[in-house]
């Protein structure tokens, strides 16, 4: 249940909270659902990046980073639980 609540809060943070908080929530959500970080990152850029924007798509970069960290952490946690 908590994991779905985290997803919901992350989604709302894109609209209501400063972007720094959104990045933190993306990272937390990615621990439960690794690909959610990427998904939220893309949604972030879809919402806020202006058309014709040239530069680093920050949402996608943070989302992808969160997803990678999430993958790593979730695999590490799974391995620890299985080996215990």
């Amino acid at each position, binding site marked *: 249940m908590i994991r779905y609540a985290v997803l919901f809060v992350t989604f709302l943070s894109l609209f209501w909270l400063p972007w720094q908080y959104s990045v933190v929530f993306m990272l937390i959500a990615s621990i439960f659902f690794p690909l959610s970080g990427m998904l939220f990152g893309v949604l972030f850029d879809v919402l*806020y990046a202006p*058309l014709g924007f040239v530069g680093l798509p920050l949402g996608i970069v943070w989302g992808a980073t969160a997803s990678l960290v999430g993958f790593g952490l979730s695999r590490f946690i799974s391995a620890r639980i299985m080996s215990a």
Partner: protein
Amino acid sequence: MGRPVRFLTPWNLRTGGIVLVVVLTLVVVRAFFPGFFTTFFTPLWNVGERGTASVGAVGTFFTDKGELALERDRVQSENEGLIAENGALRERVADLTALLGSRTETNSGIVGGVLARPPVSPYDVLVIDVGTGDGVKTGAQVFGNGGTPLGTVASVNNSSARVLLYSAPGRETAAWVGEKRIAGTLRGEGSGAFSMLIAREAGVVVGDLILVPGAGALPVGTVISVEDDPAAPRARVRVRPVSNPFSVSWVTIAPSLAL
């Protein structure tokens, strides 16, 4: 010794496939219907705006200190607007004095509420609740408190628009500095800040107004520091915005100034 954890499990593959489809859908919809998401999520931004106002009000209800803080914020915002308006009027008087007999009519604008602003967005973009249905056009100049120029409309749909602020990172805008109107290029640094490169001999000092073209010359910021390196031919000028993009809640869009 534990079993190795498998990466490509059926669950992972299925989830990955779903996420890929959703991501592609988001990108395609954004590319072909740029305003869809701003329209679709406008209620969420509206709830956020109301929530922020309510939360602030709850805190101030219980304490005098809170009331004072609110009052101070209101006065600061009002003062900010008056400073900008005063600067704009001063420049206008100077222009009209120089060009006696020129036209003096004011431009009427479209008033729009701000749905999202920095720091929710890291790109120095405002999402506003007026669009083509209200007469907003791409390229139109957008003004904040006291007629301070904030940026231009970057994209617009029927009921909402995105405004790219002059302070967006890397954005360059033609501008003038000080009473002598020294021309230069104002560069956005993000979060409302600007910088500018000006010839060292230009005599720019702290406190000079930075003006951009609009209905005359309109102030966007004031010089807060001049980094004068004797080895460099030009001095870097740091500029503080007249209008704080973090607290702007209403804007005016000039339809007649569409580029």
